[in-house]
């Protein structure tokens, strides 16, 4: 992939693009800082708003929007996140201009019809019930609440809970939209069958029509300190229990990020889920999945691990998780593990950027976190330059049983859990 192109439009929107001609369509991914962090005390409005952006504009009803988009074979989606409202889509080269015009129309002129508000309210309430019945989602939601306490945007349910969903009114949505959905700090990453002419005519031109009327981009406060907890959520009708363990990590631009990312790979991702998977799945056959994750954002981050086990194996599994965490202190990553991990991260640059969707996401991430357009070229050097001891140190510092919370959801009692 060549160095991506970057353009700043007059209204502040940033366009990033890279050509991937063998993938015969155009894909884009973008964002506006209108996620959970922007909603203040009005919990749930960001999520509610994001689900209504395809529900009608001043020019078209929801049905007409869907008919037109699918009539030209395009896709357009909006999703709410902790920090941003994100949007993504696909079209052919010929229909890219119209697809971006519809994107602009949905962002700038939504009408929030009452009928659609009530439809989304029903949908959100169902989603809350479905998530509450899902062992993994329920455990993760609780873990996030512990790691990011005091209603921090990273820790709370973006839907705001059933009471909030029932109370949100059209005026709340209109106010949130007017205050936060505008092109200041808008990023759009485009890839696939694109070139400079297509970017100028079909993408930049319609996007530059978005007006700026901003209240400014809200700063995200750093999370308050985490107090580790152990909680079980009995769900007796389930077959399997989900265990999640986790604690605070670092923001994306923190000095420890790259070392911690490599440590996370070695602990619970590489191959069949790193050390964790080797122990729980490969050696003991306790779980189909047992993996670790690192989620680094603007103002903070979280690392976590998850495993799905039969309730009869719960104690054995938590004991094994504890052993693997303790082993990071007594038997830290060996040189050959670190070497394999570095090879994996460098090699994965070729493999993980083969699809339009993956490239668009990566371009977006580079711009959002200010990593620079040369980031991908310099990445191998960053990885190769990581000192082995640094990788071991950050694993010892962040991946500890004492510093972590644990939640178990499934066919388990309320008995106190230990890790």
């Amino acid at each position, binding site marked *: 992939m060549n160095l991506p192109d970057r353009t700043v439009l007059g209204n502040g929107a940033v366009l990033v693009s890279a050509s991937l001609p063998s993938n015969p369509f155009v894909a884009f991914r973008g964002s506006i800082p209108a996620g959970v962090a922007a909603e203040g005390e009005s919990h749930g409005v960001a999520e509610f708003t994001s689900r209504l952006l395809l529900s009608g504009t001043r020019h078209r009803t929801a049905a007409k929007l869907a008919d037109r988009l699918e009539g030209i074979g395009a896709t357009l989606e909006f999703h709410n996140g902790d920090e941003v409202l994100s949007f993504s889509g696909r*079209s052919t080269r010929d229909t890219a201009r119209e697809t971006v015009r519809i994107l602009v129309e949905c962002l700038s002129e939504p009408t929030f019809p009452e009928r659609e508000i009530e439809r989304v309210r029903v949908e959100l309430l169902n989603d809350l019930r*479905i998530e509450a019945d899902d062992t993994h989602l329920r455990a993760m939601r609780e873990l996030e609440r512990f790691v990011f306490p005091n209603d921090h945007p990273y820790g709370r349910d973006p839907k705001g809970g059933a009471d909030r969903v029932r109370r949100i009114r059209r005026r709340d949505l209109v106010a949130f939209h007017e205050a936060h959905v505008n092109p200041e700090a808008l990023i759009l990453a485009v890839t696939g069958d694109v070139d400079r002419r297509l970017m100028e005519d079909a993408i930049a031109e319609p996007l530059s029509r978005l007006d700026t009327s901003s209240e400014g981009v809200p700063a995200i406060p750093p999370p308050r300190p985490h107090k580790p907890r152990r909680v079980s959520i009995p769900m007796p009708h389930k077959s399997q229990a989900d265990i999640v363990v986790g604690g605070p990590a670092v923001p994306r631009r923190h000095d420890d990020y790259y070392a911690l990312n490599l440590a996370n790979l070695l602990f619970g991702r590489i191959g069949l889920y790193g050390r964790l998977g080797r122990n729980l799945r490969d050696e003991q056959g306790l779980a*189909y999945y047992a993996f670790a994750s690192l989620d680094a954002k603007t103002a903070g981050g979280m690392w976590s691990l998850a495993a799905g086990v039969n309730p009869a194996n719960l104690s054995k599994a938590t004991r094994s998780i504890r052993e693997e965490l303790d082993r990071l202190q007594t038997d830290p990553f060996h040189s050959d593990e670190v070497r394999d991990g570095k090879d994996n991260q460098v090699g994965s640059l070729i*493999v993980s950027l*083969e699809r339009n969707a993956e490239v668009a996401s990566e371009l977006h991430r580079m711009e959002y976190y200010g990593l620079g357009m040369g980031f991908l070229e310099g990445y191998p050097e960053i990885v190769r330059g990581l000192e082995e001891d640094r990788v071991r140190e950050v694993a010892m510092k962040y991946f500890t049983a004492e510093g972590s919370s644990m939640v178990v959801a499934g066919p388990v009692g309320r008995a106190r859990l230990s890790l």
Partner: protein
Amino acid sequence: MPTHVETLENGLKVILRPISDTRAVSTWVVYRIGSRNEVPGMTGSTHWVEHMLFKGGGKLGKGDIDKLISRLGGKMNAFTDTDYTMYFETIPASAMDTALMIESERMRNAAFDPKEVEAERTVVISEREGAENQPEFAVEEELWALAFQVHPYHWTPIGYKQDLAVLDREPLYRHYLRHYAPNNASLILVGGFDPAVAMQHVREAFSLLRPEAPPDPLRLAEPDQRGERRSDLVRPGPADLLSIGWHIPAAAHGDTPALILLSTVLGGWRGLLSFAAGDWHPRSNRLYHALVESKLATDAGVRQEMKLDPSLLIVSATLAKGASLDRVEQVIDREVDKLRRTVPVKAELDRAKQQVRSWARYEQDGVTFQGMLLSAGEGLSSWDFGERLLGKVEKVRGEQVREVAKTYLVDEHRSVVRFHAQGGAG
């Protein structure tokens, strides 16, 4: 797209699709063995065998596949379907030989170490138990069991827990030896390589492997259904669910293109295999208007299960709280009846064709997806199954959509599963 096809002397069909501007290569092997080739008492064995083929044998020790691919930054996985099983590695093209060596060893030399077979028993049971946590799995398993009473589509590829609890190494190993042979497989390579050079490497890796006697053809055919079948599941869950399955012909049948447009008009289109669609759900379709816009359901869709043998077209819905299963079923009946009575208008048919056309492009997103599409095509009939189907869809007339609705969406030939959610955790 230029595609080179050649069959080795031992029967291995090789399909090479070079792509000039990529540095990755995706290597796929598809075996014509799935849960349809199992017998009662051995359900889930094909899937268990798939798990065992990551555990080494021949030149590969335990954990070697993992290490070799990880060091390259590659991705790999495998999928067991009712009709076929496929394996893949996507790695830098310069390391193509690594994937070829892994697949060559996997084809004939898997170890099936008894200790490893035993360790994997709890892993596959755990995979099943994870699925059991989802109410949708119970509905899916019930629907296929209801609709197929003779044919092995009666069970799903994960198998029954009671079979997984007692199966032992010998039948699994025999199952492997019988079906994992070059003349029962196709090898697909997509990515940055020269076809002549790649073919030379393929010959070096595979030409010495011995073929097996061809597997016996499956003789079981599902008799015609004589009346509607219904099942009501009353279990804890967060939302009522409804699934209705009608018998449709095998994927290779001439009515499949018209059924694709019927599915699209009724529930939208998410691609032939729907792996590229992610979270995206269509809205410009009759079920969305009738069920979701009207707040009877929060999700509704159609799945046309394209299989080697006659299969199902499935309509499913997640009900909104307070909506009744009877009412949702009535609305689906009404929409199906409209399809049987009235030819879709031109604009609706054009929109459906455009969706199918566009998704045919979106499913070409990168070497891994292209490899998967070609492999699934080989599993069903031929690597170009998707491309040929697209050509036929273009020619379908509205009248043919009505005809297939009248022929297949027949009440006497359907199975209905209703999930009555009790309590739930919310």
